[in-house]
């Protein structure tokens, strides 16, 4: 148990009559970046506030480095937790310059403080900008200053609230990589929340899917995408085709023919087919015959809505940008094995 920096056990929280969290359990290992992803209103921000100590759970317990900070009997407030936080809007103190913002939470004499601030400025690559005021910085710079301010007092955990949502889409990927590098360099344990799948999958070591106040699955990004444990996770992360099938052990019979499964099942199931696992070509090359119902062209790739010849099975395919099929064309399709199965629900 000691190997976890953060342990959240069975957290429950309601505001008035609305229950926001019911029974959230998850842990974070030292140096790990955990992403909490969920739809808005799904309790993500509440989770962060509970960990930070702005709010306390109704039930359950939170431990940081083995020390209980919140439980039925214990309520350690935020200022005594040594949990750093970077807010969505950064919340840099507008009356203080970059240097004083970063040094805000540092204790001790001026020299050690200044040395630590200088060290942080170098870390975030803003050396020499200590005298700037926050409003003289770009969005990405402001974020790095907020990060440095939170990291300066060496927090036990760093929390990030929707860290990249205030940045231009063009800038986001770059800043994400920079921030990830900084975090990995300091080795801090980090929990962030986001509603952006791409952000969660690319930034986190481990992603936890928070839905309706529960954690549905917590896994490495690739496992989460390739082996979702529930239909809800499959539907939430990435795009999904669910095709009905009858399973016989490790294969299943469906409108797409016989598909190999990644585990053994029996009876009625739905198989999950990601659009990029569907390959299409002209019908003359074989494959399962289908008709193109619609096409959405994105540039780097495109999506096709296909209808099989049985007239009921619809499937979405993602294809390379070069494919020139249009509405009404007949195509042949293949599915890349193996596929994931979910027992039939109603």
């Amino acid at each position, binding site marked *: 148990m000691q190997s976890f920096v953060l342990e959240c056990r069975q957290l429950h929280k309601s505001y008035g009559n609305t229950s926001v969290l019911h029974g959230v359990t998850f842990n974070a290992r030292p140096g790990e970046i955990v992403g909490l992803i969920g739809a808005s209103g799904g309790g993500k921000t509440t989770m962060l506030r509970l960990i930070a100590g*702005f*709010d306390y759970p109704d039930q359950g317990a939170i431990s940081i480095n083995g020390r209980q900070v919140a439980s039925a009997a214990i309520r350690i407030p*935020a*200022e005594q937790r040594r949990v750093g*936080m970077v807010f969505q809007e950064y*919340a840099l*103190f*507008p009356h203080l310059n970059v240097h004083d913002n970063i040094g*805000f*939470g540092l204790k001790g004499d001026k020299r050690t403080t200044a040395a630590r601030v200088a060290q942080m400025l170098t870390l975030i690559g803003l050396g020499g900008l200590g005298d700037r005021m926050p409003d003289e910085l770009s969005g990405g710079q402001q974020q790095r200053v907020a990060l440095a301010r939170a990291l300066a007092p060496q927090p036990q955990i760093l929390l990030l609230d929707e860290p990249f949502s205030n940045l231009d889409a063009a800038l986001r990927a770059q800043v994400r990589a920079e921030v990830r590098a900084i975090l990995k360099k300091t080795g801090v344990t980090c929990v962030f929340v986001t509603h952006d799948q791409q952000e969660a999958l690319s930034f986190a070591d481990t992603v936890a899917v928070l839905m309706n106040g529960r954690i549905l699955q917590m896994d490495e990004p690739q496992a989460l995408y390739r082996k979702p444990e529930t239909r809800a996770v499959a539907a939430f992360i990435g795009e999904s085709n669910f095709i009905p099938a009858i399973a016989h052990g490790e294969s299943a019979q469906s409108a797409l023919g016989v598909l190999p499964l990644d585990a053994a099942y029996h009876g009625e199931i739905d198989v999950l087919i990601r659009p990029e696992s569907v390959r299409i070509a002209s019908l003359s090359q074989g494959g399962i015959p289908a008709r193109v119902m619609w096409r959405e062209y994105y540039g780097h790739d495109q999506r096709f809505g296909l209808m099989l010849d049985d007239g009921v099975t619809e499937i979405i395919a993602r294809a390379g940008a070069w494919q020139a099929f249009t509405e009404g064309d007949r195509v042949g399709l293949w599915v890349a094995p193996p596929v994931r199965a979910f027992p039939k629900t109603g």
Partner: protein
Amino acid sequence: MSEIRLLSAFRTATLRHVNHPRYEPLRLWRGTGGLKFLTAVIGGLVLLPVVYLVIRALGAGQDGLAYVFSARTLEVLGNSIVLMVAVVIGAVGIGVPFAWLTTRSDLPLRRVWLIGGMLIMVVPSYIGAMMVITAFGPRGLLQQLLEPMGVERIAPIYGFFGAWCVLTLYCVPYIVLPVRAALLHADPALEEAARSMGVRGSAIFWRVTMPLLRPAIGAGALLTALYALSDFGAVALMRYDAFTRVIYAQYTNSFDRSRAALLALLLIGLTVALLLIERRSLSRRRMYRTGVGSQHKARVVLLKRWKVPAILFCATLVGVGSVLPLVILTHWVVRGVNAGINLDSLTLETFNTASVSLIAAVVIAVLSLAPALLAFRSRRKVDQWLVGMTYLGNGVPSIVVALALVFFASNVTPALYQTMPILIVGYTIRFLPIGVGAMRSALMGVSPRFEEVGRTLGLHRWQLVRRVTIPLARSGILAGLALAFLSAMKELPTTLLLAPTGFRTLPVEIWMANSDGRFAEVGAPTLLLVLVGAVSLSLMFRGKDR
């Protein structure tokens, strides 16, 4: 009525959505108990004199009842209501077109007219009334101009007409500001939508713009009504028997102060009725707030053949409201300098005014802290009511507050009667809302995120207040206190009733000079108070563009 009301109407009109979710600030922190207690004590002290006055007035018995229903009282009531309604109609009739012309039309020099129109507020109403009398009164400037042409008498300015003119003029900004804000912030897409559906020209104004303006006009009209009801300077100088003048006359001329108390009670009743109406209308104000999305400018309406009348209209308002006072003020100062003013007494009066106002501002600063923090930390109804008690000076006319203090002091604490402390108490009750309001909105302007960041960085409660909250709110708080200080400097009725005998302040000096007809002598002090007004006006709108 008071600056803070105007300010709040203005803020309501310009508030934008805050796009971070608002968790209640520091809700978890125990111990609003102390704040609650302090606020209750302060609120109680503020209410005490007025409550005492009400109880005494209600206890007047048969005689009192007879006086309330006497023909004279009903006449005063009628006078006040007629004046109030007439001023509202006048101010709306002038203010709405003025706001529209300076905001939406191609009127030349729009900013000049607008600033000129707003400068009216710089002059305290009693000084404004004196200026109007100087200009249009018997043997006034106008008559002097007309005399060579054989005009020996002009229509008397005193009475209803004079009071109406002055008050209407002074209330125009109370309409213009909220209406202009509403015009600026209303989504132009609404008018464009109407145009795309084939609605044209003036029909757009009446069918789309006007309904959107209604809440702003309503808010402005209520401010105007409250102002007209509570103003003392203009009605007193114009010798119009509205409540405030008659209350003052009863207080000074007769030994029976219970009659003044009864009249004050009626005035309170009227004010409360208006405030209740205002409370009801609060929920509808949202109409002219806009969403977050970016907004383009509304179309400028071409005036064409209406341009000349529009210019004349604006020029008349600005001329009478702002240029004329400047001319008269210069005239007075020049005459005063020629006559040789007694600078010694002026220095003393300025010192008296400034020192007593400064003490009041410091007292207000200290007393504002607890209610403002409570309003900031708690959103519970009970606490809002507690804070609301400290806003008494906002609703109840100052002549009533002052009378109540006279009553209370002479009957309950005779040692305080006619002393400096009671004058400071008077200013404090009158202007506490400015302090609480300024501090509160300054605190509200501090995003809870900042305090939360401070907490994650290990700051404890008082460290947070000292290192985060106060520094971020500081300029707003200081501006509020400066406003309270400047307002106290200009205040007439409270000073007239409460200042110790022989204690001369600038407003009192101007008042006395007026009743003796010594206008020229007060040129310098008047100029000083007008400057005070200018500074407080600029303070009020300092944060406007942020």
